[in-house]
C-alpha cells in the first residue's frame, strides 16, 4: 500500500435493514485519499455521503468491500477496534457542533483527550491549534454562551486534539451564516495547509467545496465522475 494514501476504499457496500426492507446505502464506492489532502464530497440527500462518513469514522461497519484507514482494515474490525479507531485515527466535526452542553469549551476539548487517555501529556502543538482557531479567549464559556461560529471552532479543536489521521467534517458550515462559514472553511484550509491535516468534508455548498483540493461527487450510493445537482 502506498504510504501516502490515508484512506483506500474499494467496492464499499453498505446495506441497512429497515423493517423488512434492505436499503442499499452504498453500492460499490471506490475512493483514495492522500495524506494531507483536503477532499470535498458533494451529492444530493440520500446519495450515501453520510453513510460513507459513518463507515470511515468507524461508527458503523461496512457490509462488504475493502476500507483501509492508515493501513487498518475496517472490515476486519470488531466494535471495540472501531471505538479505538475513533479515539486515535478520526476526528469528527458535525453540522450541529455537538458540543457537550454541560461542559465549558476547554472541557469539551479536553474530554476528547481524556477519552483517548492523554490527560497528562503535554501538547505544545495543541496550543498552536487553539491560537489558530482563535478561541483561546473563549475557553471558559459553555456552548450556550458561544456563537455558532465559535462553537464550530471549538468542535474543530476537539476533533483534532488527538492528532487524528483524518478529520471528517459533515456539513461543518450548514448551520452558519456566510461570514462564520468563511471563517470555519478558512480555518479548515489552514489546518490542512499549515498542519497537514487530512480532511474529508461533506457539503451541499459548491462555494464550500471550492476550499478543498479536490471534489468527489456521489449519487445513488456511488462515486460518480460528473458533478450532480446537490439539491
Amino acid at each position, binding site marked *: 500500500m502506498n504510504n501516502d494514501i490515508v484512506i483506500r476504499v474499494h467496492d464499499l457496500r453498505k446495506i441497512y435493514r429497515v423493517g423488512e426492507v434492505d436499503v442499499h446505502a452504498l453500492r460499490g464506492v471506490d475512493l483514495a485519499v492522500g495524506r494531507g489532502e483536503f477532499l470535498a464530497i458533494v451529492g444530493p440527500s440520500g446519495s450515501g455521503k453520510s453513510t460513507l462518513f459513518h463507515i470511515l469514522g468507524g461508527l458503523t461497519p461496512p457490509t462488504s468491500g475493502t476500507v483501509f484507514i492508515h493501513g487498518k482494515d475496517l472490515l476486519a474490525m470488531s466494535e471495540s477496534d472501531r471505538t479505538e479507531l475513533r479515539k486515535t485515527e478520526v476526528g469528527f466535526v458535525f453540522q450541529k457542533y455537538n458540543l457537550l452542553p454541560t461542559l465549558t469549551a*476547554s*472541557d469539551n476539548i479536553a474530554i476528547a483527550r*481524556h477519552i483517548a487517555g492523554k490527560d497528562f501529556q503535554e501538547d505544545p502543538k495543541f496550543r498552536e491549534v487553539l491560537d489558530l482557531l482563535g478561541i483561546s479567549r473563549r475557553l*471558559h464559556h459553555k456552548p450556550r454562551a458561544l456563537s455558532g461560529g465559535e462553537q464550530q471552532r471549538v468542535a474543530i479543536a476537539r476533533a483534532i486534539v488527538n492528532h487524528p489521521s483524518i478529520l471528517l467534517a459533515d456539513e461543518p458550515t450548514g448551520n452558519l451564516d456566510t461570514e462564520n462559514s468563511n471563517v470555519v472553511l478558512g480555518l479548515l484550509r489552514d489546518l490542512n495547509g499549515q498542519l497537514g491535516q487530512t480532511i474529508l468534508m461533506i457539503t451541499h455548498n459548491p462555494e464550500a467545496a471550492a476550499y478543498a483540493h479536490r471534489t468527489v461527487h456521489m449519487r445513488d450510493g456511488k462515486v460518480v465522475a460528473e458533478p450532480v445537482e446537490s439539491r
Partner: protein
Amino acid sequence: MAQSVKTMWNAREALSHRYNGTWSRASRAELLEFEGTPFLINKLVVENLKHRPVRTLLSVLAVGVEVTMMLTLVGLSEGMLEDSARRARGVGADVLVRAPGTSLIGLSSASMNEKLLGFFEQQPHVRYATGTVVYPIGGVNTITGIDLEEFNRISGGFRYQEGGPFRNPDDMIVDEFYARQNKLTVGSTVRLLDRNWRVCGISEPGKLARIVIPRRTLQDLTSTTGKLSSVFLKLDNPANTDKAVAALKQRLPDYPIYSMEELTSLYSVNNVPGLKAFIGVIIGLSIVVGFLVVFLSMYTAVLERTREIGILKALGASPAYVLNMIFRETALLALVGSVLGILLTYGSRWVIETMVPASLIQKIVPGWWPIAAVIAVLGAILGAMYPAWKAARQDAIEALAYE
C-alpha cells in the same frame, strides 16, 4: 454581528502571529488547564447532575429518605431496647426473675404466683423481692403495677418532680416524658383500661416504667389477682449475684433468671422475636424505593442525554467509559443521599423527642451509617444497571441524530 466579525479577525490575527512564534498571554495562561484533566469524567458527572437540579435533588432526597428509614428504624429498635434495659437497671435490683416459658423481651400475661415473693426473700443472699405486673395498653406502651412499699425498699423510691406516691387505688405515677407527651400535671385525669386515673406524681424517667399504678388494682382489672409478670430481687451484696443466680436456677429450673448485667446484654435486636425480620423487611422496602427512584432518574437522564452519549461515542468513548460515567453519577447521588439521610436521622430524632418522647426513643447509630450507605449505593447501582446498559449500547449514529 460585530462581535463575530471581530472574532473572525482575531482568528486571522492569531494565525498570522503563529508563524512569528508569538503567543497571546491569555492563551498561554488558559491553556495550562489542558495539562491535567484526570478527573474530567468526575467533572462531567457533577456538571450533568447540576444541569438538572430538580431531578438531582429528588433523587438525593429519595436516597436520603431510604437511608433515614433504615437508620431511624434501627435507631428506634436500639434506642427503645436500651431504654428498657436502662429502666430495668434503674429499679436498683440485682436479679430479675420471669415466669416460666416467657422471654425476657416481649409481653406475656402475669403468671407467676405472688406467694413466690416470700420464697425469694428466704433464699441465700436475697434481701428484698418485689413483683410487678405489666400490661400492654397499645402500641409499644405498657402500664406497670407495683407495690410501692416493696418497690421503694429495692429502688429507694421514685424521685418526684411533682406530686408524690399513690394515695388511692386509682392513682397513677407517670414519668416526665409521658407527662410531657400527654401534657399531664398532678391532678390530671388519664383514661386507660376503660377507667379514669388521677395523676398523683410525676417522676424522673429511667426507673422501671413510664406509667405505674398500684399492683393490686392492675391485677384486679386484668384478672390476674395474685399473679406477677416479673420479680426483682435485691441482694445483700451485688458481688454475690452469680452465686445467688446459680442457687435460684437450681431451685427453680423452669424460671428464666437473669443478673442485671446479663439482662442488659440480652436487650438486643437479636433477642426480640420478629424484630430482626421486621428490620430486614423495612430495609428491603427501602432498597426497593431507592432502586425505583434511581432507576427512573437515571433512565430519564440517559434518554435525555442520548445525543451527548452519541457525542462521547463518536469521540471514541467505549461502552465501559459510558458505564463508568453513569455509575459514577449514580454513586455520587447515593453518597450525597446517604449523607443527607444520616443528617435526617437527627431531624427524625428531634421530632420523636418533641412529639412522642414517652412512646419512642431513637438512638443515633453511627455504626450503621456505613452499612446504610453501602446498602443505598448498592441499591442505586442496581437501579442504574439497566439505564447504564442502555446508554452503553446506544448506537452512536442514532444517538447523534436524536433531537
